[in-house]
């Protein structure tokens, strides 16, 4: 009996430590200086420039991820071919790579002395230390998150509905946009939210491949790193951190809400069982 009590107490203690450990650093960001001062720091040009760079590069990177990733995910989800499992695993690899390795990989591939550096130079393109390099870094580390979720989502779309649409005379394009995409909408949005959050936080690959220049390549995480080294710059780093915590939290809540809402399933039930 007392042993069971001890066991229970240990479990609760472990849970408390885990909870406190994960929560205290986030709370501490807001506890250290007053909210008024945090908001005041947000008008610092380092912060506004970093925010603008972060928003622009993340938006372009996510547009690329959506435009290229959605067809890729649909193909991988609907076609069966030898080596498919390998292809999916390879696409997911950047997800588990350390960011520093991603940075080295991008330099080794797209850097001036890299694998494709000569070909790019022939086209007059130099990616290293440019805003395009930030976009590539973000797309490389965040893209697989969307891809993975999109493949799972497309796989979950009932093939009978696709077949029904085709037998009713809709072409593959019309079927994709009118049947598959509406059904997959929530899953895709969830994947995109995850990719967006990861892209916003990108640091290692960016600082290695794109460098750090205020207003050009210095994203919010890079600005936090640089301002940390400035004497008396800690308040600014706290303000930027608080901003990122809030944005990330909003993305997480949006993700949870999107995944819980299942309007597409309800729509399909209504469409195909109107008498019930």
């Amino acid at each position, binding site marked *: 009996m007392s042993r069971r009590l001890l066991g229970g107490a240990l479990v609760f203690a472990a849970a408390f430590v885990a909870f406190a450990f994960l929560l205290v650093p986030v709370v501490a960001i807001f506890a250290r200086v007053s909210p008024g001062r945090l908001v005041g720091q947000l008008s610092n040009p380092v912060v506004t420039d970093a925010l603008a760079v972060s928003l622009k590069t993340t938006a372009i990177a996510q547009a690329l991820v959506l435009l290229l990733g959605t067809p890729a995910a649909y193909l991988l989800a609907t076609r069966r071919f030898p080596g498919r499992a390998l292809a999916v695993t390879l696409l997911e690899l950047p997800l588990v790579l350390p960011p520093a390795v991603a940075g080295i990989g991008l330099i080794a591939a797209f850097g001036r002395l890299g694998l494709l550096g000569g070909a790019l130079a022939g086209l007059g393109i130099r990616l290293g230390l440019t805003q395009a390099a930030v976009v590539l870094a973000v797309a490389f580390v965040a893209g697989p998150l969307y891809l993975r979720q999109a493949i799972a989502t497309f796989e979950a779309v009932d093939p009978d509905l696709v077949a029904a649409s085709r037998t009713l005379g809709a072409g593959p394009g019309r079927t994709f946009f009118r049947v598959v995409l509406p059904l997959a909408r929530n899953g895709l949005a969830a994947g995109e939210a995850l990719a967006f959050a990861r892209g916003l936080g990108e640091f290692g690959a960016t600082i290695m491949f794109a460098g750090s*220049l205020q207003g050009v390549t210095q994203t919010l995480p890079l600005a936090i790193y640089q301002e940390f080294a400035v*004497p008396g710059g800690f308040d600014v780093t706290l303000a930027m951190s608080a901003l990122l915590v809030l944005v990330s939290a909003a993305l997480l809540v949006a993700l949870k809400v999107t995944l819980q809402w299942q309007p597409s399933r309800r729509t399909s039930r209504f469409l195909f069982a109107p008498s019930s």
Partner: protein
Amino acid sequence: MSRRVLVSSALVVAALAAGAGWAATRASTPRLTVFAAASLTDVLPKIDPHERYSFGGSNALAAQIQQGIPADVLVSANTSLPRQLYAQGLVAKPVVVTANTLVMIVPHGNPGRLHGIQDVTKPGLKVVVGAAGVPVGDYTRTVLAALHLSSVVAHAASQETDVREVLAKVALGEADAGFVYATDARTVAGKVAVFPIPASAQPRVEYAGAAVASSPHRAAAQAFLRRLLAPAAQRKLRAAGFLALPRR
């Protein structure tokens, strides 16, 4: 089952206690945590392999000490940061331990076709410098101002957080030119070409070390700094390209 857990945790505790005891017997030579300028990355472990090193931009290391991150010694690539921390009571009186010179480097093959330092203002060139506040960044600004080339800073392709980041960007060929210490250029000989900076524009690059005030190993930290000043260590520093200690 839970008894087994208890027994194994008792074993772990016993092992930890034994380890602590072992550590205590070695307390006469504590392993120091040394925060040191990135430019000392290769040479300090050769001088004293016993200590634990954390290399980085000196200003980032100083900021960590200000935030209370435990360290025993700070060796900064300038004298102003240790002096600031000394004024704040965070470190003991700093001593100059070595000196260096600044150089301009270009990647192997000189893709930007620079013929001299004056060419660093050529349009379209990607020049990388240290950020303001980072010692190498401040020295670079001093040099460029002395040579009337200050516009380079505003047009820099990247402002890096320590000298080794500048070095890497040039050595990898991503940047066309960068400003680093002579000793850094030596570590990637063959990958970069060096343009010396005229003595008249050369800043006074001096490294100051100080024992951290809150360190429990103050005496050992002072001893570490004294060892850096000893002839054996100074020989190794000079072999790496650092300058002889300035006479005062």
